[in-house]
Every structure is written in structure tokens, then in C-alpha cells.
């Protein structure tokens, strides 16, 4: 079938859906939505519609990025702006069906915001909310708006028009367009995508490959998952454009196995592309032919490194090899190969759809365009965000993220996952771009952004990341294999209260050695979380080592719990809750924690009623509690 015909049909199908007199209900059933309980909400929605004898179109969409408000639905009634409802439970869903679908009360008290023409009194416009206003949705343009399992939805929204345009140009002209956009790799390194394509284009070979790196291994990051679940065709169109530009006839998507829904959506998408002749021979009537395969990862962080990833596709242990030769010349099975990250491919498709100039109008001089981040940790509004490069960390954390949970004090933001660093408050007004974050000792990375507050111990965080990288080191380079182990041993001593003077300097020396002596980026960046926390939070290391004190009160070996004799009412709640049976006391007797038995789980602190708040956690301070249970104050 001719693509013009396919497109016309898709558009008329999309318009018919828009014009339908039936209400439309979009429900987010990505992994985030489901984890928050979207399936139960969807069941209730269907039951309530049937019970009230209502007809409506239900469309299951991907994540719009407001994960903090999941489960989320958008209800469109003809002639009205659509209304978003968040934090749904089956009970609230039933109320909304009754009041707004059976009745005509949009329930402003439950609504998050509206979208589209017109207003509804009492409900703000969704994209005017602080969480969305600073965002520019380019890579995730369709996420939450279209059914990711229906290729017609994508095509009706300009989908594959970028490919159509590219196929009318020469491969070199396509590469020039990408170069002109200034797109830099969104996987972490920030290398020019156009240059990369040029190298692979110029390389000689009878067979060339392209790869989509969807092995999103950074803990705390889910940009690629959300994109593949919510709009797989945006990525696949980018891959087709790249394949045409460099002259590849075969491609692979290497997706981690922890993302079953993303893989399911990719499989559906590929079937539909085959049906429409967008894969296979003579795509869109051109000379261009292309085949695509999905490879599931098997759980190895190092496979995010391009040479390790290719070894894994070939069926071997995922171990990196020295470069050069670069994959552009000798990649998969020794053939020229171009490998880009999920988000880079999604940007490539829209650059070809809307032009390099339009795309480059966002961002800064050296870091063009937009970048997605997964904003998580101790912020009020967690979620997937997309912002122009150059926005400040403060705008992201306090504007979009709504500040720190419980009004606590901000301590650090971790960017770039295990390869990145922890930045303190003094960097909140720094712009987020490749150069600024690198100058601060961190990286943009693939887009993980984890916010930490005063309750997070930075030595513990460094210990956490090193535990991860030490475990994930493939073992090829000795500096990485044993250097990370040695660094971890030292950190273990520090958090356990066995730190010695000189440990900080030793960590710095070892960190440098690991960086210098490792072949790939895993070892080359593994010391970063340790080195940046030493650089910005040295006082916390010193408190652990010299005073055996954990200022955040996180490191178990360095904290004690005790019950304040003046506040304890002798209610017995903590005594019953203590899993170690370390609390003694009796009716109307002040309870006492036996420090020798205490496992420092913090259960007593949690269960002690707020009106008493008698349990105290201290580090490096004396315990002010009686040795034996005594009568409660004033009751003697």
C-alpha cells in the first residue's frame, strides 16, 4: 500500500475518533501506572460504564510523565476541554463516572487540570501547572496522547513523515541535517550524532548495522522505558532514518529484560510496520530495504557500553574491548555499525519531521534541544520530565519537582547514575548542559536525577553506588576489578565506624587509578560518586572517620536509639513492635532499649505515637535514658 494512502486513512481514523460523540477516556497503563494500580482502576471504569449504560472509547496510553499522580485518566467529552484526574482509586473512578460521565459535574475537587480549547471553572489548565509549564515535550511528544499499540495513531500525528522526507534526500543530506541540528548522543557521552552517522556512512563494508541501545542500566533512570512503552514508533522511525543515512540493511534493538512491557510494545510496533511495508524490501517504494530484530538483555550493566553490548548480541559474555577500531569501522560481527541511545533515535525522527532549525531553537549554544530526565528520590513530584538544555537544577527540583518531600532540607542531587556525581546546594542555579555538569564533576548521563535530602548520608550513597559498580564490573581490567573492591572495602569500614585517618586520601588515589587504568566507561567513571561526594561533602566523611558519627543518622553502626524518659507514656506500642525484643518496660513504666540487643531497625521511632515522640535517634551523642524501666513522669 502506498504511504500517502496509509497516512490519509490514519488521519481520517484519528479525526473520526476526535469527532466521535462518545466520550473518550485515556488511561495511563505504562509500568508506572500499573504499579500504582491502574489495572484495578481500569476494571472499575469498565464495570461502572456498563452499570450506567454508558458508551465510551477507552484508550490505553503510555506515561505522560506525571508518575507522582498515577493512576491517571484523561476524560474527553465533546465540546469541552479534556479533564485529567490523578491519584485514582477504584472508588474515586466510580465517583467520576457517576458524576461526570453519567452526570455533567466535572468534579473540580478531584481534577488535576484541563487540556484543549475552552476552560472549566475551578480547574486549572494542565500545562500551566508548575510541573508542566517549564517542560518542552519533543522526544516524548506522543507519550500519553496516543495508543502506542496502534501505528495509525502515530502516523496521524506526523509519524513517519520524517522518514518519507529522508527517503527523498540523499543519505549525505540526511546526515547534514542531523549535524545541523547539533544533536548530541542522549545516552550519556554527548558525542555528536551527525558525526557518528558520518563515520559509519564513510566506512567501507558490504553489510552495515545499526543498533538501538535500550539497555537502560543506570539505577534510578527510566526515560527509555517510558519512551519505548509510550511511543515506540518515534524510536523506530529514527532508526529507519539512521539506517538509510549510513546504508545499513539490518538493525537491532537491545532492550533490557527488566522492561517486559517495552519489549511487548516494540514487538507489536514491528508487526504493524511490516504490515504497512515500513520494514522489509523497498520501503515506501524506494530502494531502501531494512530488517529489524529485538534482542533481550540478560542483566549486565556493562552491556550499556557499546562494544560489550555488541559482544552480547553475538552471544558472548558482555565484555568491552579496546577502541579503536571503533564500531563505525568494525562493530557487530566486524562490520561497520552505528549505535545510538533510544532517546537519540526519537530526536532524530522529529528532526527529520520538523527540520533541524526548529529543533535547534531549543537549548543552549553547545547543548541543543531538549533532554528527558527521570526525576526521582526525595522530591514531591516524581516523574519523567523533558526540559530544554540550559534549565537550572533549581527550576527542575523546586519548580517541576515541587521541592523536597516533607519540607525537608535539600542536600544533593545525583545526576548520571553510577557514572555521575552528587552535586550540593551551591550548584542549584547551574544550568543543566553537558559542559556545566562536567565542570562540576558530574555528567548529564542518560538522564537519571535522584534528589537527596538531609536524611541521606552521602558516605552511604557513595557506598551504595560503589557496591553496584563493583558488582557489575565485568572483571576484565584489574584496576576496575580490584580497585573498586578495594575502594568498597574502605567505604565499608568508614560506614561501619572503622574508618582511619588517611582513608579519604587513599580513596582519592585509588579512584584516580581506577579511572586511568580501565578500558571502558564503567571503570572510567565508577569512582565519580565517591570522588564528588568527597569533594562536596568531605565534612561527612570526616565525621564518620574522626568522630564515629553519621550526621544524617543513616549508617546503622553509628547510630543509637533511646527512649526519652520525660516523654515516654509507657504505652507499650514500641515494646510490642520491636522485632529484636530489645525493649523492656511495663504498664506506666518508662520503656528502655537494651543497646546490646538493639538491631537499629528504627521500628520504635516509627511506631511511637506522634503525641509522645519519645524515641530519639542519635549519632555520636550520649544516650540520655535510665538504665532500668522507671515509673512514667508524674505517675510515681
Amino acid at each position, binding site marked *: 500500500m502506498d504511504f500517502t494512502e496509509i497516512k490519509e486513512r490514519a488521519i481520517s481514523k484519528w479525526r473520526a475518533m476526535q469527532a466521535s460523540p462518545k466520550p473518550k477516556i485515556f488511561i495511563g497503563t505504562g509500568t508506572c501506572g500499573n*504499579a500504582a494500580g491502574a489495572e484495578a482502576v481500569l476494571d472499575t471504569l469498565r464495570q461502572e460504564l456498563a452499570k450506567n449504560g454508558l458508551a465510551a472509547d477507552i484508550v490505553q496510553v503510555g506515561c505522560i510523565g506525571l*508518575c507522582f499522580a498515577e493512576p491517571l485518566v484523561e476524560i474527553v467529552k465533546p465540546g469541552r476541554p479534556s479533564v485529567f484526574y490523578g491519584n485514582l482509586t477504584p472508588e474515586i473512578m466510580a465517583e467520576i463516572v457517576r458524576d461526570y460521565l453519567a452526570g455533567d459535574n466535572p468534579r473540580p475537587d478531584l481534577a488535576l487540570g484541563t487540556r484543549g480549547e475552552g476552560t472549566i471553572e475551578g480547574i486549572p489548565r494542565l500545562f500551566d501547572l508548575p510541573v508542566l509549564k517549564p517542560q518542552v515535550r519533543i522526544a516524548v511528544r506522543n507519550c500519553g496522547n496516543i495508543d502506542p499499540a496502534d501505528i495509525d495513531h502515530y502516523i496521524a500525528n506526523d509519524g513517519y513523515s520524517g522518514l518519507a522526507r529522508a527517503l527523498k534526500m540523499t543519505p549525505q543530506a540526511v546526515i547534514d541535517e542531523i549535524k545541523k541540528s547539533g544533536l548530541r548522543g542522549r545516552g550519556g557521552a554527548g558525542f555528536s550524532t551527525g558525526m557518528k552517522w558520518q563515520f559509519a556512512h564513510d566506512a567501507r563494508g558490504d553489510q552495515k548495522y545499526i543498533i538501538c541501545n535500550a539497555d537502560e542500566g543506570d539505577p534510578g533512570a527510566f526515560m527509555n522505558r517510558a519512551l519505548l512503552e509510550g511511543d515506540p514508533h518515534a524510536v523506530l522511525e529514527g532508526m529507519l532514518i539512521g539506517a538509510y543515512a549510513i546504508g545499513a540493511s539490518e538493525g537491532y534493538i537491545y532492550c533490557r529484560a527488566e522492561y517486559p512491557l517495552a519489549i511487548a510494545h516494540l514487538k507489536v510496533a514491528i508487526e504493524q510496520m511490516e504490515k504497512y511495508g515500513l520494514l522489509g524490501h523497498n520501503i515506501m517504494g524506494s530502494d531502501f530495504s531494512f530488517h529489524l530484530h529485538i534482542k533481550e538483555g540478560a542483566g549486565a550493566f556493562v552491556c550499556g557500553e557499546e562494544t560489550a553490548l555488541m559482544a*552480547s548480541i553475538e552471544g558472548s559474555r558482555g565484555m568491552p574491548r579496546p577502541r579503536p577500531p571503533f564500531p563505525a569501522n568494525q562493530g557487530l560481527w566486524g562490520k561497520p555499525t552505528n549505535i545510538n541511545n533510544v532517546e537519540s533515535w526519537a530526536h532524530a525522527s522529529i528532526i527529520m519531521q520538523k527540520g533541524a532549525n526548529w529543533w535547534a531553537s531549543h537549548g543552549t549554544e553547545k547543548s541543543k534541544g531538549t533532554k528527558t530526565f527521570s526525576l526521582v528520590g526525595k522530591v514531591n513530584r*516524581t516523574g519523567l520530565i523533558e526540559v530544554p538544555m540550559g534549565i537550572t537544577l533549581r527550576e527542575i527540583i523546586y519548580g517541576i519537582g515541587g521541592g523536597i518531600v516533607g519540607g525537608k532540607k535539600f542536600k544533593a542531587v545525583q545526576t548520571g547514575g553510577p557514572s555521575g556525581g552528587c552535586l550540593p546546594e551551591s550548584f542549584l542555579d547551574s544550568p543543566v548542559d553537558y559542559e556545566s555538569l562536567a565542570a562540576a564533576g558530574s555528567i548529564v548521563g542518560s538522564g537519571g536525577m*535522584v534528589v537527596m535530602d538531609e536524611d541521606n548520608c552521602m558516605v552511604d550513597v557513595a557506598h551504595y553506588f560503589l557496591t553496584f559498580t563493583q558488582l557489575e564490573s565485568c572483571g576484565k581490567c584489574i584496576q576496575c576489578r580490584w580497585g573498586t573492591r578495594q575502594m568498597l572495602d574502605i567505604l565499608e569500614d568508614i560506614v561501619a565506624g572503622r574508618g582511619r585517618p588517611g582513608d579519604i586520601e587513599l580513596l582519592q588515589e585509588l579512584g584516580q587509578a581506577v579511572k586511568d587504568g580501565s578500558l571502558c566507561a564503567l571503570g572510567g567513571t565508577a569512582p565519580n560518586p565517591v570522588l564528588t561526594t568527597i569533594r562536596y561533602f568531605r565534612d561527612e566523611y570526616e565525621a564518620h572517620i574522626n568522630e564515629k558519627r553519621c550526621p544524617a543518622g543513616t549508617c546503622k553502626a553509628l547510630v543509637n536509639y533511646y527512649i526519652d524518659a520525660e516523654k515516654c507514656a509507657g504505652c507499650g506500642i514500641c515494646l510490642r513492635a520491636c522485632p529484636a525484643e530489645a525493649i523492656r518496660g511495663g504498664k506506666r513504666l518508662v520503656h528502655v532499649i537494651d543497646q546490646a540487643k538493639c538491631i537499629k531497625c528504627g521500628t520504635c521511632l516509627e511506631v511511637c505515637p506522634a503525641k509522645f515522640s519519645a524515641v530519639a535517634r542519635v549519632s555520636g551523642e550520649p544516650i540520655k535514658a535510665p538504665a532500668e524501666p522507671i515509673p512514667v513522669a508524674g505517675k510515681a
Partner: protein
Amino acid sequence: MAEAKQAERTASPTSEEEIAAKVDRVLRAFKGEKSELIPILQQVQQALGYLPEAAMCQVARFTGVPECTVYGVATFYAQFKFVPVGRNIVKVCRGTGCYVRGAPRLLDELEKLLCIKDGQTTPDMEYTLETVACFGSCALAPVVVVNDRVYGRMTPDKVKALVGRKAGQ
């Protein structure tokens, strides 16, 4: 939107014949090329719950890859397991988002509740407890996954209710 396939789990088979028959069934869909090694091992594990030695030898014969290489590849990747697993697999995310929001306490709670450590299986083969690097549901941290179903915004109490209810089935 397509549904992710929910793994149906039964206890791992123990008899040699049963293992060989299940591996045979998996191998029928493959050509026997080296590049298929990881997908083959993944499907064998899907069928058996783990990779017994006999199954890995069978895969080696089928692909022509030396047994030691098959073992080397299998042990490289965190996904592969070499001891039988329980009927229910409980995974605690140890991603950064989950870590800073209290995942270690969920693991403590589960270890206490099931009387096993991370990576172990209860003697009645009912539960296997695992940790996973990151599920990518960080905005709903901390998360626990039970048999491929993701539960977000977990607390030690919710974990107790979740596993307790499962145990009562």
C-alpha cells in the same frame, strides 16, 4: 495497549527426562547458531525456572558452543540462575530511587518474613527472594515485584500484607 506476558510459574522440574524434554521443546524454535545462545538460555530458564547442568550441556551440543563457554556466558549475566527457584519470585528493587526511599528496609522485612536471605528459596519451594538492579519504576519508589507484577510505593507493612496474602492462597 498490549499486555506484558505474565510468566506462569510452576515448581522447577527435577527428573532428568522431564528436563531434557522441556529443553528439547525450547530448542525446536532455534537454528543452533552461536548468536542464539543467550535467547536460548533465556527460554530454557523460562521453561525450567533455572539452568540445570544437564540443560546447559544439551544447549552446548545443539549450538556447537563448548560447554565451558555456555557456562561462562550463563554465569556472566545476572538473569541466569543455577539452582531451582520457588513458585513465587519476590524481587526487591535496589535502584537508586528505591534505595533513597527505603528499599533496604523492605528487603530486611522480607528476609525476616520468609526466613531466607537475598538469592535464597524457602524450603517448601514457595518463595524465592531476589534483588534486581532497577525496574525503572523509580517514580513510584520503593517497588517490589512479585511474579512480574510491579507494586509501587511500598512500605514494610504493605510488603507484609502482600506476601502474607500470597502465602495464604
